[in-house]
């Protein structure tokens, strides 16, 4: 089910123009592994690292599955956070949970306060699987037909063109310089814009407003 849904979003959106089809399997496998490990988040930096994809591409690719404009389209939720700079704390401070006043955040462990302007360059994004999706995934994980349907493409017969496509994309991934990490909100909103100027996901719009307000 989930695998199909990922594929449907991939085809409906601009995602299929920008990223090779093989990425769907990478993401699907990544979600399954993280579910199995009982992780709370889907970490795009880890996705970037293990698949040798730049952080920019990893984040943009994730954003395509984060849109909640049409209910059926949304598979992931985005969670923006930064790490408490207090030497003895290091808590992850999620912007959604820790905002005291607009643009003012508090670490809920050590109580240190931050203003948006200071933390902006250090904001990172994790993703979470929507609850609906995780039930879809875990509902009948032993059903043979579900397992077969969700099987990675590498186990199915591949068309020559898809193989060519994936090898082509592997090359471009290697060519891209270093895998950079820091992703400012500005970059994120920039990544959130397709070549036609529309937003990939509307999940960022509250943050975009914040950005505009502070400028």
């Amino acid at each position, binding site marked *: 089910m989930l695998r199909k849904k990922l594929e449907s979003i991939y085809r409906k959106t601009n995602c299929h123009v920008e990223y090779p089809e093989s990425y769907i399997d990478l993401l699907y496998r990544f979600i399954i592994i993280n579910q199995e*490990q*009982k*992780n*709370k*988040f889907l*970490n795009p*930096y*880890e996705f*970037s*690292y293990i698949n040798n994809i730049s*952080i920019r591409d990893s984040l943009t690719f994730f954003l395509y599955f984060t849109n909640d404009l049409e209910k059926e389209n949304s598979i992931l939720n985005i969670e923006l956070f*930064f*790490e408490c*700079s207090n*030497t003895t704390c*290091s808590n992850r401070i999620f912007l959604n949970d820790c905002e005291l006043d607009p643009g003012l955040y508090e670490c809920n462990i050590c109580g240190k306060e*931050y203003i948006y*302007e*200071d*933390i902006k*360059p*250090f904001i*990172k994004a994790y993703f979470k699987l929507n609850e609906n999706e995780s039930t879809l995934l875990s509902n009948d994980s032993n059903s043979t037909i579900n397992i077969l349907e969700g099987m990675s493409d590498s186990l199915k017969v591949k068309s020559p063109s898809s193989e060519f496509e994936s090898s082509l994309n592997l090359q471009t991934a290697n060519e891209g*310089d*270093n*895998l*950079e*990490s*820091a992703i400012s909100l500005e970059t994120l909103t920039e990544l959130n814009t397709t070549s036609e100027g529309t937003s990939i996901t509307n999940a960022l719009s509250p943050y975009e407003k914040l950005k505009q307000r502070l400028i």
Partner: protein
Amino acid sequence: MISESILKNVHKYEIKSFLKRNSVEKIDSRLTSHRADDYKPYSKIIDEEIKVNKINRKLVNEFLCEHICYSKTNIYHIFDLTNFFCFNTITEVQLNHFKSNNPKLLFNNLITDVTLEEEFQLCSTEVEHENDQINQISFLFYLGLVDTRAKGRTSFFSNVIIDVKQKLVFVKFNSNLLENAKYDKLFLINRLLTILTKNDEFQPLSIGYESFNEEKPQKMIFKMFSELSLEAEEILNKKIPLGTDEKIKSFLKDVKISQNEKDYIKQIKAVIYQDLSDNFQGNLFKNGWVFRFVFREKDYTRASSRTDDYSPIYGSKVYWNLKELIFKGKKMNDAGFKWVLPRNQSPILVKLESKNNGIIIQYYNDKERNNQKFRKEKDNFVAQKIRKYLS
């Protein structure tokens, strides 16, 4: 006149011994200040001695920089150096030409000659050049005045090092002043990095940096952890008396345990390892050991352990209980290492952490004991390890 607020970066007893080393006379009677925040007599005596040529400005500058840039800085934020104007060779003549073409970079400026006016003002730049290559460039930035309870108004600096050899950028602070500063550390770091990459006077250096994908430092810290721990385990294993395995096996037989034998042998041996590690303390592990660690089990549960006296963690039950989990995940958020350098005055005691898009080094217990030479040797050692395990 050398300002009190700069001098407050150094303790009074250190200034006294500096003056003594340079045979200044009647030091005690000339330095009769009893309040911790009163540095007037100290500033006065230095001025007087410069006037009579007993000490010179260069010497005072060296003394201050040693403290401001090395012995008193204990928090480093590290980023990846991705660009620099000269990774290749450059002759001394070429370098001198570059220096004279860029006077705004204040090469070899004396801190005693700078008027500290603006926050984030560059005070001096120094190049370490060897065999036609630049090893590192060191910038001293003035960040403003900080009021501390103990010493009052103190000039706050950051030393930024471009390590060309290991391709790393170090943004270094004195943690005590950083705690008291009006700006948050994150703001300061970002501002300094922006100055280095965007300000006009720095353009000829073409400095480019990138933050780290959090995965990389976490894997790097794990690798350092595993290097020292596996080495320690091997040493401990050699200390285990011959025939121990057989004894454990026969014990297990006696109590009628026949399944999971291997696992139980490991567990019982871990008890012996703990005992050995506790008894021998540091004497067994010649190269060093781990004294703390923090890692995440799943992505939201933190497990950690540390010894209060920086002694080996291998004496703790927690280490042996968590070991398999750590080695399974192969990632670590922070860890404390002790490394022994044979020719150094004191061992390296550091915490390495993956945080805020970079790597953070915190030196423990190292503020007073280290002069520039010894601290630099430590910095180079840690930088090499970082670079080695980042890849």
